[in-house]
């Protein structure tokens, strides 16, 4: 097989971005509004949450080849660990953060214990089932005293607001505009993304990171040189899971209230799309993936709404339910096409993504 020459990847993607912006500008829709909404979402707190979650999932899926389809479960236990400790038990914020981290660690051990010795697809089934069990339990009647059931919990973010160092007033740049209270969790979110990326950068260049890649490529080979593959896979699951837990915590701190039905399996699938879009097993992939993903999804949503109010598409496609469905259709199609034609995403290396179930 002929090896392809390294391409100027950044230039190619900058070109794609220019074409997209040009199409938006030339279309008869309100291009400015679409662009504004898309940029706001792509740089906002939600994108930071997904970037953090994707960094964790990238450790599982990209570096180690673990099929964790219940990543949202880690976000759920992190978020509820925080919210229950602070709101239900009345403990301070730092205790809530510690409980959230501990909860995601325990979940990783519970999910990994029975499955990491088996073939990769068992982990996929058990993690997706585990995340759904957690959601059903948190929203169930008997758990209402602790988790607030379907009504959720509020008030746990006060401690976070209190340590906000930003002076009051408005902060705006280009098309976005935040109050000091809104900007604080967004800044913390992106700050954590930066720290997590640095951590991944250092870890994956260490001998530890090389063992993980080795497990992904050929677990038996790693075992044959005396490494305990099970233990390494468990460490990877714990580390990525705790990053998921942190993402869950910063998510519900931004939202101000927590609700079990925010933690649907779809969150995991969005995160997968982000990891693959950016490029699995790359450091910048999950971050750029999250920004591009939310730029496209939000731009598409706004464009559909605009198009239906101005009569370019039938009105029934413009209702909230239909816009939601179209958004998921777009993501599903994007995920499929990426996986078929460009499994290495924007920045990845294709030879690293020819994965089999070992």
């Amino acid at each position, binding site marked *: 097989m002929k090896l392809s020459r390294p391409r100027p990847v950044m230039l190619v993607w900058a070109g794609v971005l220019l074409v997209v912006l040009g199409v938006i500008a030339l279309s008869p829709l309100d291009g400015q509004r679409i662009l504004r909404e898309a940029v706001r979402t792509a740089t906002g707190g939600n994108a930071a949450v997904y970037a953090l979650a994707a960094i964790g999932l990238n450790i599982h899926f990209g570096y180690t*080849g673990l*099929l964790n*389809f219940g990543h949202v479960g880690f976000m759920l236990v992190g978020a509820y660990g925080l919210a229950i400790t602070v709101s239900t038990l009345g403990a301070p914020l730092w205790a809530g953060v510690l409980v959230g981290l501990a909860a995601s660690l325990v979940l990783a051990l519970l999910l990994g*214990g*029975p*499955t990491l*010795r*088996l*073939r*990769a*697809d*068992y982990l*996929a*089934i*058990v993690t*997706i*089932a*585990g995340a*759904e*069990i957690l959601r*059903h*339990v948190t*929203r*169930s*009647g*008997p758990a209402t005293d602790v988790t607030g059931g379907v009504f959720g919990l509020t008030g746990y973010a006060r401690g976070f607001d209190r340590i906000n160092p930003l002076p009051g007033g408005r902060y705006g740049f280009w098309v976005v505009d935040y109050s000091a209270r809104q900007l604080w969790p967004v800044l913390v979110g992106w700050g954590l993304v930066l720290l997590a990326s640095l951590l991944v950068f250092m870890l994956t260049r260490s001998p530890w990171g090389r063992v993980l890649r080795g497990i992904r490529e050929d677990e038996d080979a790693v075992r044959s040189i005396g490494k305990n593959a099970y233990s390494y896979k468990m460490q990877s699951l714990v580390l990525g899971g705790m990053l998921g837990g942190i993402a869950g915590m910063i998510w519900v701190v931004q939202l101000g209230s927590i609700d079990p039905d925010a933690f649907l*399996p*779809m969150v995991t*699938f969005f995160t*997968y799309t982000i990891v*693959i879009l950016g490029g699995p097993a790359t450091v910048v992939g999950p971050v750029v993936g999250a920004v591009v993903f939310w730029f496209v999804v939000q731009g598409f949503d706004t464009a559909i709404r605009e198009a239906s109010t101005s009569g370019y598409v039938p009105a029934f*496609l413009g209702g909230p*339910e*239909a816009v939601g*469905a*179209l958004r*998921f*259709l777009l*993501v*599903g*199609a*994007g*995920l*499929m*096409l990426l*996986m*078929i034609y460009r*499994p290495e995403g924007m920045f990845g290396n294709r030879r690293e*993504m*020819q*994965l*089999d*179930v*070992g």
Partner: protein
Amino acid sequence: MDGEPLQGVRVVVSRDGDRVGTATSGPDGGWRLALPGDGAYEATLDQASLPEGVAVRDAERATLPFTVSSGQQRTLVFSFGDEPAAVSYLRRMAQAAVNGIKFGLIIAMTAIGLSLVYGTTRLVNFAHGDMVTFGAMVALLLNTSGPSLQLIPAGVVAVASGAALGAGMESGLWRPLRRRRTGLIQLLVISIGLAMILRHVILLIMGGRPRPYHDYTVQAPVRLGPVLTTPRDLVVIAVSTVVLVGIGLLLLRTRIGRAMRAVADNRDLAASSGVDVQRVILFVWAMAGALAALGGVLLGVVENVEWLMGFRALLLMFAAVILGGLGTAFGAMAGGIVVGLATEISTIFQPSELKTMWALIAMVVVLLVRPQGILGRRERIG
């Protein structure tokens, strides 16, 4: 009481707190009320109107919420008196067992396809649940709109389209991808993308509300020994049993069935023994699609048709397939029935909103102690 009808009991029906109407039970203990339109209602039993010595069995169940859409009937049952504890326990157990078998047979039927596809291609197909919803939706569209077909012919068409969908996905997507030597993990993620597409196309077509079929929605219950059931549920049980036995015979006795088991068992060995593996896989996909569609129609009959029904069932199918042993057809059947019984019997001891949890926990326990499943063999789990 003791099966005697209660006459002259008042029931108040309200919507959003506003009273819509009042009905009084007749000499047969029944009552009817016409409602002004679609929506969510609550029926409250006026406990003051009950005869001396009669009380509602469960005070929380004196108000029953329900939804209705135009042209539809709803049956509400209030329960009175307390039964002797032992009899009541046995009766509830028997009732849960019958419900569990009904549900388990449907899960078993849909899980066979998931398991055989896995056995022959090593693909864990996350879109299988949405193939279930697809079958239910095709029957719903034919039954309630357009041609207004009766449910049985509508179901037959749905099963045929399910088979076509399965075969179409195999020849249009999975076979070309196998030719390109796409990795199994990639295929798995592709099946998730495909599931998202299918599910949301279904949502666009039929909307987010659960919808019933026109036929067989309201039926007078029949009593079989200790169990209260409906002719509809008995037919569902009978149809599922016949289909499962038929599939079993097909796998054991016919040439194509033996070829399917051979490919699932050892693909290379089957190929070198002269089995046309690609043809067998196509047949497996068509059968998986047909069984998923039939399961969807039956599930729609006993519950409602909803866009998320297949995804919910998928987790139970996974539990069934792992319980029985990934890749084996008979394991999926056994696992499905165990899952059905476990979910329904758990409702006696636990809140019913947690019933799927017990099936999933059973799956995790089996993975811990016997990862190859009840009927699986050790070498499959590598």
